[in-house]
Every structure is written in C-alpha cells, then in structure tokens.
C-alpha cells in the first residue's frame, strides 16, 4: 500500500503545513498572524505541486500567491486596521457554518472520494503513467494557436481590467 519513502513523508509534512496553515487562517484573531498562516498553507500547497511533478505550478504558487497575493493581503490588513481591536473573531452563525462545513467535508469524503477512489472504488489510485509533460510543453500550450492562446489573451485582458478597476475603486476621491 503505502510505501514509506521520502515522497510519502514529504506528503505528510506538506499536508500538515496545508491543514495547519488553513486552521490558523481561520482561527487567528490577529490578521497579520492569519496572513502568515496563509503563507504557510500556500507553501504547503507549493510543496504538493512539486510532489505532483508540476514544478512550474509550485514556482507560480510561491511567486504569485505568496509573493503577490499574500503580501497584498498584508498591505490590506495594515491599511484597514480598526481602532477597536477587540472585535470578535466569529459572527453569529459560526456554529452553523462549522456544521455545514463539516457536513460538506463528510459528503465530499464519504460520498464522493471514498466510493470512487477509495478501496474498492472504480477509479485507479495510481498514476497512469510516469511520462509527464514538461514546462516547455505548458509554455507552448499557452501560445499555440490550436491550444490555449485565446484564454491566455483573454486572461491578460482580464488582468488589465482588474488593474484598472482596482485603481478606480481604491483611488482617493478628493483629488
């Protein structure tokens, strides 16, 4: 079943990062701490990407998610510090949300994942092949006319729009 080799141990370590980071995000009252926990979680995700033979994704994760988004979040936290810092962490419906979330997890795991990919499930759990496409192939896919160049361009437009929008939204109105 599960061989105890470096990959498995790395898996577990990274999963700890993921889950622990996630828990920390959700429960921290100090938002800076929360952002840092987010970074840890995302880092765990990057590790997963490495294990899954997607080094480009791992790099992008670290660069974009952690480097840009998480930092942006830290900036936002710093910009939106309220005077009273004794506000509660959770809102009124936290227990119901927890319940719902747990149920969702239960459903996903028991209803979907385990029946299909668990023991005795219909789908295989092991990779089909070990021949993995390279990063070069990914780059080609982005710009190749018969592959994904259109979504690529649209994505760039989107980002332009987002930039403009963010600037418009967040600019100083009394100028």
């Amino acid at each position: 079943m599960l061989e105890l080799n470096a990959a498995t141990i790395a898996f577990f370590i990274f999963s700890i990062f993921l889950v622990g980071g996630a828990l920390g995000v959700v429960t921290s009252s100090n938002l800076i701490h929360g952002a840092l926990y987010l970074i840890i979680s995302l880092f765990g995700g990057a590790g997963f990407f490495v294990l899954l033979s997607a080094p480009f994704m791992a790099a992008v994760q670290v660069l974009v998610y952690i480097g840009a988004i998480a930092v942006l979040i830290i900036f936002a936290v710093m910009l939106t510090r309220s005077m009273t810092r004794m506000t509660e962490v959770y809102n009124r419906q936290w227990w119901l949300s927890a319940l719902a979330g747990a149920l969702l997890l239960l459903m996903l795991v028991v209803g979907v994942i385990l029946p299909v990919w668990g023991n005795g499930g219909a789908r295989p759990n092991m990779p089909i092949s070990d021949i993995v496409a390279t990063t070069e192939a990914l780059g080609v896919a982005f710009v190749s006319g018969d592959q994904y160049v259109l979504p690529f361009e649209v994505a760039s437009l989107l980002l332009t729009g987002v930039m403009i929008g963010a600037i418009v939204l967040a600019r100083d109105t009394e100028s």
Partner: protein
Amino acid sequence: MDINALLNDPNFLPWLIPVGPLLAFFIISLLTSRSKMTPATSAAYGGHHPDYDGMDVPIVTDRSRVVSIIVGMSGALSAWILSLRVVFEALAVQDFGKNVLASSLDWMDTGLTAFRMGVLVDPLTVIMLIMVPLAVTMIFIYSIGYMANDPRQARFFALISLFAGAMLTLVVADNLLLLFFGWEVMGVCSYLLIGFWFEKKSAYNAAIKAFTTTRVADVIMLLGIAYLFFSTGTLNFRDIMYNPMPGQDMAAHVEETGDHSAETAVAEGGAVVVEGEAAAAEGDHSETAAAEGEYGSEAHVITWAAHLGETPAIFFGGISAAGLIGIFLIIGTIGKSAQFPLHVWLPDAMEGPTPVSAMIHAAAMVSAGVYAVLRMYPVFEAGGHPHDGVFTSPLMLMAVVGSVTALFAATIAVAQNDVKKVLAYSTISQLGFMVAALGIGGFVAAAFHLITHAFFKALLFMASGAVIHGMEHGEHHVHAHGHSHGHDDGHAPAALPQGAGGGPLDPRLELAMDHGHGSADHGGHDAHGHALVTTHAAHDDHAEDHGHAFDPQDMMNMGGLRKTMPVTFITFLIGGMSLAGLPLITAGFWSKDEIIAEAWLGTTKGFGPHALVLICLSLAAFMTAFYTMRQLGLTFWGDNRTEEAAHANLGRGIVSVAMTLPLIILSFFAIVAGFVGVLPDFPILGGIFTPGKVAPFGALVEKALVNPVPHLSFNIIPVLISFTVALGGLFLGWLMYWRKPLTAGQKDPMITILGDSVHTTLKNKYYFDELYIMVFVKPSQWFAKNVSYEFLDKGLIDGFLHLVAAVFTFIGDLLKVLNLWLIDGVSDGIPTLIARSGKWFRGTQTGRIQQYMLFVLIAALVIGVIFAVTTGVLQAAP
C-alpha cells in the same frame, strides 16, 4: 226554455214569489243609499246623538228615497200578485193536498243521488201565501209614511225587502234546509232592523239580544235537522211526512188506481220532479206519489215520520227518533217565536222602528216559528195520537210551554205602561196559544189562530205606531210654542201652523219641518219602551234637555186621543177587540174559540195536557181582554192627560194617508178573516158561512196532512167559556179604565189592586232579564275577557308569536355573531395572515451576505443528500 211556457206553468211560479223582494233588496242596496254628508246638528238628522255632534253624518238623498220606495213597493207588490196567482192556481188543482204544486232542482250532488231544493205549494203554504204578502205589503205602505224623514230610509227599505224575501222563501220552501235558510236570514234581518237606530245603545243591545237568543235556539234546531237527515236521508217535506217510505208496497196502489206514473216517481226516490215544459205540454199539474188508499179512509200511510215515531232515538233511549227530532225543532220555535224561556228578546225588539215590530212580531218572524211547527207536525205527532190521549214528548213539550207562556206573558202585560210593550207581551201570549193548541193536537186551530193573529197584531202595531207618531207631533207642538221650556231647539220654527191646515206649504217641506225633530226621534222614543220599564223618567237622547223627560210611548201621558186621531182610534179598537176575542164579530174570537174547543174536548175525555191548556188559556184570554181594554182606555178614552196628548195627531199629507190606509185594510181582515173557520154546526152562523161539512179553512188545511184529522163538532161549553172570558175581561177593563178614565197624575188602579210588590214584579217581567244577565251574560263576558282574550289570545297566541319572534331574533343574533366572527374573521384574517407572514419572511433578508452564503451551502448540501439517496450513490459504497 220558453219563457211563456215557464210563466204559465204553475209549478214554476212559486219560485218567483220570493224573487221580487230579494231582487228589490239587491237593487236598493246597490243603486241607492247615496247620501249627502250633512252636519249632525242639522234638522234632517233629527235626533242629535251627542256622539255625532260636530261631525258630518250621511243622510240619504231624495233621489235615493224615491228609488228605494219605488223598488221596495214593486218587490212587495210583485210578491203579492204572484202569491195570489199561485193561490188561485193551487186551489184549482184537482184533489189539492194529495196533488201539490212543486218544482225542484238538483242543488248538490251527493254521490249517486243529489240533494234537491225547490218550492212546494200545499194547503199550508196557500194559507200563508194569503196572509204574508198581504201583511207585508201593508207594512211597506205604512213604512213609506213612517220612515219618510229618516236619514237612512233607503237602507230600511232594502232590509225589509230582504226580510220579506226571506219569509217568502221560508213559506214556499219544499225542504227543511231551505226553510232554515229563510229562518236564518230573517234572524240576521231582525238583528239589522232592531238595531236600525244603532246610535242608541239600547237599540243595538236589543239587536244583539234578539240575535243571540234566537241563535241559541237555532243551533239546537240545526241539530234536529241534522238528525232528521241522518235518519232519513232526505229533508223534503213531502218525502218525510206525506209520501210513503221507500220500499212500501206499491203493487197494491197500482192495482187500485191503475196509475203507473206515480210508481216511476216513487222509484226515483219519491221526490216530486216535474220539468216545466213537460207539465205545460201536458197541461196538467204535477203529481206526487200517491198515498196508499184514498184520502179520508182509515188506512194510515207509513211515512218516514211514522217510521221515525217507532224507532228509538240515539243516545236517549226513552223516546223515539221523531220525538228527539221534534224536541229539537220545537226548541228552535221556542227561540224564534219567543216562548218561555227564550222570550226575553221580543220586548226589547221594540227598539226597532214600528214597521219592523209589525213585521217581526206579527207577520213574519214569529209566524215563521209557528209555521215551522205546523209544517213538521206529523213528525211531532208520530207515534202518538193526541186526540186519543196518546201524547208524544214533543207534543207534551209544546202543550206545557205554550200554556205557561200564554199565561205568564199575559200577567206581565197587565202591568206595562208602554203601548208597544203591552203589544209585545200580547204577541208572546198569543203565540203561546198557538203552540199550546198544537201540543194538544189542534192543527187546524193553531193554523187558524196564526192567520187571524197576524192580521190583527200587525194592525195593532201599526196603529200604535200611528199613536206614537201623533204623540210626537204633540210634543213638537208643545215645543214649537215654547210652552213651559222657553227654548228653541233647532226644531220647527215657532209660528208654524200645526195640523189643522196644511197651508200653502209643500207637504213634504211641512213634513220636514214638522218632523224636523226627526224620525230619529222615533229612535229616541220607540226605544224608550225598553228604558221605560226600568225608570219612568226616561231620558231622551236629544242634545237639548227637556227639563223633564217626555216619553211619547207612555200610555200614562196619553188619554183622549180619540178626539184628534179618530181613524187610528177606530182601527185600534177593531184590532183590540179582535185580540180580546169579542164574540162573533171578530176574527180573533173564532180562532180562539176553536182552540178552547179542542182543549175542552180533550178535557172531557180526561186528558191532562188538555186540561192544563184549557185552564191556562182561559185565564190568559181573560187577561188579554182585560189589558186590551185597559190599553184602549188609557190611550184613547177620557181626557188628555198631558198637553202633548192634546195636540197629538198625524197631520195631513202623504204621511198620514200612508199610515192610516193599511190600518183600514187590515181592520177589515181582522173582522172578516174569522168567518172562514166557522164550524158547520154552529147555530145560525154555521149555516151562513159554512155550507159544507167542514169549515172552509179547516177543509183546506187538513188536506196538508196525510193522515186524517178528526173534525171538531160544535159544543156549547167552549163557546160559553170564550164568551165569558172575553166579555168578562172587557167588562172589567171597562169598569176600571173607561167608566172613570184616569186623569193626569192619577195612579194606575192596578197597583192598588195587586199590591205594590206584585205589580212591580210584573212590571219588571219577573226579573227574568236580570236572571239571564247573571247566569249567562256575565259569565260569558267573564269568559270572553279572561279566557278568550287574556289567556288564549294574549297568552297563547301572542305568546306563541312572541316566542317565534324571540327564537328568530335569537337566531339572528347568533348568525350575526357567526358572521362577525367567522366571515369577518376569515376575510380580515387572510390579509392579516399574509401581512404577518410577509413580515416574517422579510426577516430573512438580513442584509448579511455570509448568512446568504450559508443558506446556499446548506441548500446545496441538502440537494446533494437527496441526490445521493435517490440515485443510490450512497448505497453503492461498500
């Protein structure tokens, strides 16, 4: 239908006799009685009733007066002429009595058969048809004068026409039911006419008294009629009393007479049915089913009446069916003919106008009672034979009641001071004579006395009306000349010439002024007859006070009227003598003598009832003669006792002629009518007047009966008795009232003779009225007020209605609450519900996005679970 043939058919003519007066009633009622509204204080209204002062009252227009007079007289004359024609036709019928004039038609289908109504003219009808229309016509003529200034004259003529029509219907009826119809209609008319001056309380009280008293008797009579019908299945007179019962042996008859037509007639039920055309074609008269054997033989026909005399009555085992029926029918006569104890209505009926009194108490109503008994005599006699001393219960009843009444009423009459009251009690007494005569089997004698009595009593009443009229004239004269009162009272102006010269004035205007005091005055005065008995100082109903009450009917106020009213005096004298039975020359003598002769005959044979009748009737005849002489003496002889009497007269003009002419005609009959009944073996006179074996009257009347009646033969003793009582009474009266006539203010010698207490008792009619009030009237009034009104009407019926109303009100309130609660609740509740639920739903819109997202997640989870369960994905897991 050929009218000529119909009118020539003597069977059909009797139908037309009552038609004239009845038609007159309808025409007068519908066409006339137009009236002008005039103030009640006007002269035309006369007796100003205080209740009507200040109001307008209807007074009939002159045109209506004329129309009513013409139509009324036409009706009466037509009845008279037709009756005479029918009488002649009837007397010309061969073997009249066995063969009669009859005509009938199917009146009511009763299954297989039909009840027939029709007319019958047999000997009894004939004598009534001679008397009744004559008397009625005389009364009509008299009324023209008497009611000339009455404000409601047209109504009066309508009512007496109806009265006459009813009486004639009764006379020509061929069955007991039609007779009863006439009987009842006359009862209604008596009520309407006695209460003609209904403003006067005593008048309408008297009307009610008359009607209810006779009604009591009529109900019992109806029971008798019903029982008769129940027993025999028919009410036809001939079928019950003359024809043999159905099922009698006809073979013997056919053999004897060879007459088959009667057989078929009997087979049809024995009713006499002849169509007018058939009779006219045959030119002969209808026949009835012949009696078995020749008339006059000893064979007795078994009629229904005879049969009923043998069968026992239901419920009362002791007497026969005929006896029970007879008693009931006699009770009817006791009421109608005012016998003891139902006599109380007749004196009070003097409240009506005098023509009404004449009609009711002489010609019509009381005669109807005796006529009914005469008609049904075979039923009363059935099972008995009074001439042999075998009496049935009805006959006993009649003998006793008749004799008691005769004596009882005569004793009251001697103490009365009102001229009409004396005559009223005299009528009761004479009817007692007739009923008693029938009780002892004197069929012919009773019929004879009925006819003669009608003549002289009608004469006496009308003459007394003339006297009263004259006295009122005198009263006017006294007032007009301001004598002793010094006030003028809207009557005739002061300087009006009285009586002596009619002057250039239009007679009618003169009458109007003379009578300005009004014929309603008569209402005031006639009616005082009743009031007078209770208190001598009777108070008129005039608005003006006379200072002292003058009663023009009080004989004590009269005296010496022979000087100013000679014609009235002579006719009154003739009538009075006839009533008293002045021997030989008056009709009353002959009829009374025959009754006494019948009684004597039975007494010699030792029969008790005959003796009773003899004694009572002799005493009554004696007293009759006495009080008649007393009345004549007080009224006409001597000197005027009051100023009014001095000026009493009838005046000149149509009124006096209209009032005196009938008197003259009737006095002729009051003398002559007796000579048809003279016994053949009466010394001298018998040979003159009665050629045959039987007196003409008796010969005619006895043919009405199917069984032969024994003939009276002359006996000197009853004649002597009649002579003695009549002359003795007249002599006594002459002694007390003529030799030394009473002067003004002198007390009646009767009071000293009889003693104060006895006289007062007689004057107060033995206090019978008071007794009846205590025994019958007051309890009825108590019952009517407390039980019918309070308990039944207000308590039960109103209570029930209130209950129903309360229930429905309650239901209404309930529905209201239901409505409010349910319907309003629903219709208000739905919007409220919607509003509230809307408000509640609005609560979900908190504006908090995380909440929305949570709901989305929960929804997704739910859908996922459902999806998992339904597609069995969950089940697929190991």
